[in-house]
């Protein structure tokens, strides 16, 4: 059996969300699923994952927190309101500690921590505790829940497929 890094939960590999703009059609099922997971409503305005449309290029790009290993948001938080979910590696907002100072939203280089003025707290993706609703809702495979150590390999495989090895190997 191949031995590989495992998370502290026995027999469970660490997974990541994999986002593929090529496959995204802009249907926003992910945004509805995400908001429903958090607040029991279908409400894209409060989704932790967002799909951006680049109209003139005909491109739709889903985007959310990449769960940095050494997270800028967590390092910046002055009240230790961002914890690590031991099972998933997700950086999770501890709601009762968050004071809504928004320093994390500035610290995040990708803009994936956002402020919700209706609650006075920040919000971000927490990987739904290990079963992301967005990935389940995506009809095209643009959002998938993959082995974290396999991120990038699909794209590598696509390039490998295009390479004419016979001439060079």
């Amino acid at each position: 059996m191949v031995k590989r890094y495992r998370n502290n939960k026995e027999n469970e590999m660490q997974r990541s969300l994999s986002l593929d703009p090529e496959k995204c059609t802009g249907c926003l099922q992910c945004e509805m699923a995400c908001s429903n997971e958090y607040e029991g409503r279908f409400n894209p305005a409060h989704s932790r994952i967002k799909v951006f449309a680049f109209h003139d290029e005909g491109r739709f790009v889903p985007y959310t927190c990449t769960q940095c290993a050494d997270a800028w948001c967590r390092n910046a938080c002055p009240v230790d309101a961002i914890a690590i979910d031991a099972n998933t590696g997700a950086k999770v907002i501890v709601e009762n500690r968050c004071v809504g100072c928004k320093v994390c939203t500035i610290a995040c280089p990708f803009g994936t921590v956002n402020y919700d003025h209706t609650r006075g707290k920040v919000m971000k993706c927490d990987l739904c505790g290990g079963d992301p609703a967005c990935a389940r809702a995506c009809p095209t495979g643009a959002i998938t829940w993959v082995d974290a150590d396999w991120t990038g390999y699909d794209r590598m495989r696509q390039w490998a497929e295009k390479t004419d090895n016979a001439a060079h190997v």
Partner: protein
Amino acid sequence: MGWQKKILRVNLTEGTCTPEPLNMEWANQYLGQRGLATKYLVEEVDPKVDPLSPENKLIFATGPLTGTPASTSARYSVITKGPLTGAVACSNSGGYFGAELKFAGWDMIIFEGRSDKPVYLYINDDDARLLPADELWGKSTWETEKALHRMHQDPQLRVSCIGRAGENQVLYACVVNDLHRAAGRSGVGAVMGSKNLKAIAVRGSQGTQVADPQRFLQVVAEKKRILAENAVTGQGLPTYGTQVLMNIINELGALPTRNAREVQFEGADKVSGEAMHEPRGSEGKPNLVRNQACFGCTIACGRIARIDKEHFTVINKPEYWGASGGLEYENAWSMGPDCGVDDLDAMTYANFICNEQGIDPISFGSTLAAAMELYEAGAITDEHTGGVPLKFGSAEALAKMVEAVANGEGFGKDLGLGSKRLCEKYGKPELSMTVKGQEFPAYDPRGIQGMGLTYATSNRGACHLRSYTVSSEVLGIPEKTDPLVTEGKPALVKAFQDVTAAVDSSGLCLFSTFAWSLEDIQPQIDAACEGEWSLDRLMEMGERIWNLERQFNLAAGIDGSEDRLPKRLVTEPASSGPAKGMVNRLDEMLPEYYQLRGWTPDGVPTPETLQRLGL
């Protein structure tokens, strides 16, 4: 739930925005969107009003499934009395606007009166205000959306608006949302223009909820699998869009060509869905960039296309070099085969202009086709057209004339009247391919008999979306019928009309019915809405809506004598293809249809029928 149970009444004369509770008694009889808004229209508007007067009302309506995770849940409709037809108008659109309106907490907006200055409606959840639109008036739909994003510092605002065609009250102006989705037909954009209402900009953060979330999510997931596994909704539509039909309908000899003089077009393969995938010789890239979904849609049939930068229509016009809404089947037909044009990029350009300025491309293309026949007959000359030869097959004429309609200049003014008024003006009314004043779309009823009855009896004038019997007669959904026979078609048309009225009232897209029957849709409605929504109740509701629309039209003075097809379709036989030698045999179908509907031989619902439906 499903509904937000709140509507916004906007009095443009007084400048007021007033929330009111949704009439749930009516919602229980008419569900939402098409049915429910028609009920409001019938109750509040005298059917005899001038459609472009302040006395007409304009309703933007969502359905209970709009803005939910049910697949194809993007839809909203614009309901009013239509200026092209004088009949009830109900135009359905996708994109993102309808869902956003729902997320802001509103089921419906009713506009009444007329503003004395250009205004737009701004909605941010409960906050709804009329604001001056002086700097938006004269702008295209594309410029308007951009300007509203800038003015409100909110790139996420969803916008539904009119372009210059709506401002100029072109009789087939449409309402455009999200840059290239449109409530397209019957001139609903002209009504918006007549009210000095330029746009609605909406941002919502309240979300939607359903009555039984657990059952709802389970059933919508199950039904999405059906769409994914079906050949039409899972493969055909995402790959080719509705343009998958171009070659099929042409081979069937049911592609109206050169103003429906012929039924097959020699250039069909050059303007087909397949052709949109072919790399262009000039630059090596295809016309099609990708497919796009409307909100919540797991089919994603929308076309995003790009015009070759070197094409004559866009040389030195970089604003048209980017990707935008591409050709769907009906638009491709009207501006292609019906005008004899086989230049895909010229048609794409005309489509861009229609989106940009809010023009219904079906009516525009068909009107231009009539003008081309008038030109050929010498009734229209270069003097009328400002020196543009309106020859069948001329891509240059197509590009010039769509610009002329958009700008309301020269011969564009005549074309903006629609085919019926144009052909009357130039002395050849028989050349107008219209029913009740509305241009018929891309299926020739000589080759698909049921579509003749569909066009003749459609409550909003000729239309394919009121009973799309092409599903059965061509594609075999739910079961195959022979397109060349009339037997059984009255019952088929009635059944499709009633089911469609129910689907159009739910918030879902009619295209879902390529894979879903009403049996698949019913449990989704039932789980989302309070009360029991059985199949029987939905079917009866569909029939009720159909009769309600009919009553509005009868009261407006449009009676059974207008359930007629253009003479050409019933007297001039198809010249080629499987239907060669045939005309449409409407007379064989119409009396039986009236009978099945429970109407008199003159096409008037009997008192018993009305009573049975609770009308």
